[in-house]
């Protein structure tokens, strides 16, 4: 089974109650495959949020994507009760996403 982490690296940041993740394939040739894996509905299911809370911005010239996940940080870094209020650990979670084919 291939997961996103086999093909790409990621970094998580946050703005308020929104997690923003950069995803970049190691090899330019894998761009289309990563693009296929990063469907808003699939990513939303992986993060346990409503599909309306996920936006994906492809940045083809840089060979990267940003994945925006809203309402997953229990209010954001200043008030979250969560063990990781920044959501920094969510990059590791995203890299667990299963890539089909």
């Amino acid at each position, binding site marked *: 089974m291939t997961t996103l982490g086999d093909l790409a*690296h990621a970094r998580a940041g946050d703005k308020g109650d929104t997690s923003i993740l950069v995803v970049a394939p190691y090899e330019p040739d894998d761009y289309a495959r990563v693009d296929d894996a990063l469907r808003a509905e699939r990513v939303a299911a992986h993060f*346990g949020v409503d599909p309306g809370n996920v936006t994906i911005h492809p940045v083809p010239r840089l060979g*990267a994507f*940003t994945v925006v996940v809203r309402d997953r940080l229990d209010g954001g870094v*200043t*008030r979250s*009760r969560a063990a990781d209020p920044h959501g920094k650990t969510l990059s590791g979670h995203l890299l667990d996403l299963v890539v089909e084919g």
Partner: protein
Amino acid sequence: MSTYRIGAGSGFAGDRFEPAEILAARGDLDALVFECLAERTIGLAQQRAATAAGAGFDRLFLDRLAGALPHLSSRTRVLTNAGAADPIGLARSVVDLLAAHPRGAGRRVAAIVGDDVAAQLPADARITGTDLTIADLGDRLVSANAYIGAGAAMRALENGADVVITGRMGDAALFAAPIAVHHGWDDSAPDDMAAPTLVGHLLECAGQLTGGYFADGGRKVVPGLATLGFPFADVASDGVAEFGKVEGTGGLISRATVLEQLLYEIDDPARYKTPDATLDLGDVRIDEVGADRVRVSAASANGRPEQLKVSVGVRDGYLAIGSIAYAGRGARERAELALRIVRERWDVVHGRDPLEVRADLQGYNSLRPWHVPVGDPAEVRARLSLRTFDRSVAALLHREVEALYTNGPAGGGGADLSLKETVGIVSTFIDRDRVAPRVEMVS
């Protein structure tokens, strides 16, 4: 015009000290910038200043500067946003520090004020993402600071300041200011400000550009993280910048480390809004040009926002956390039982809503509670947390967790309790012309 070299001395208020000392000693820098102000820090500083519980600026910065000063060339300008809620207060302390040191003599210090817009903010300004206005916050409002651009810091440098202390200036603007002054770029022209703002955006998290926050598994190997070197940029007069670090320091700069930092925390890469320019990051070029040497070019702006973002600090009560750990056979089941016990008592004994207490299994899925892992952990920590304005409710949670020692599941140990007073941050916007940053020469 010659190439301008600018270094990043810190990426946040708690950052390491010695990378800046190494940059000061061996980096041959024109400017050294200390980013010390996270989104929430200024609200906390305002609160400290208001309650006379401490300084409204980052006191640790004085130790940071004292460490770098013996190594600092007289040509190197220093900029920091560690002024937080009180840039003039920090500037005065810096003047005293410089006066006491041979390397400090003759350096002129300026403070930038005017980012505090609590008095200018219209009561009906809408809080982003809500139906609330500023007026609705009432006495919970503790601070309102606009993200100001590079202009005021540029005026300070043009007036001969060697050290510039700001509050809530945009992080990238803090770096953009000295670069733009050197190359004669106009802070009111977004096209001029695109390149220095992009350089600032990449440098602002310091070690995150040189391999910090990057190492992962066998494919993302970073040498020497214990002696991570912080980055500098050589910015040419055409705006092209080459990023490097001092030879012999740990870490690495590669296309991948730069790419991660470029898009980090950016919602829409085509429209990254900063006070000085709305950047289009999608067309930026990143090229490795040598060992630990990366060239970044093609910065472009699409105007700049008509309004400035305002960070609003809101008194938010207390965050209480209590946890207790379990190990070995059945650890997860026992920890789950502990969580259930506290929530049940919250309801039936204390008559409160059990859902106000967040319940997590650390070591199992506390970082992603929606996820069901395969297999059981060898050890796990039952963690309970809540937000409240009532300090006695926070104390109640602590008592309930501690009582699990003798009234809960078998083998619970290491109970750990914490209480933090919290300032939440929300955002609003203010018209650019309502904000008037100005320079105060302090020495």
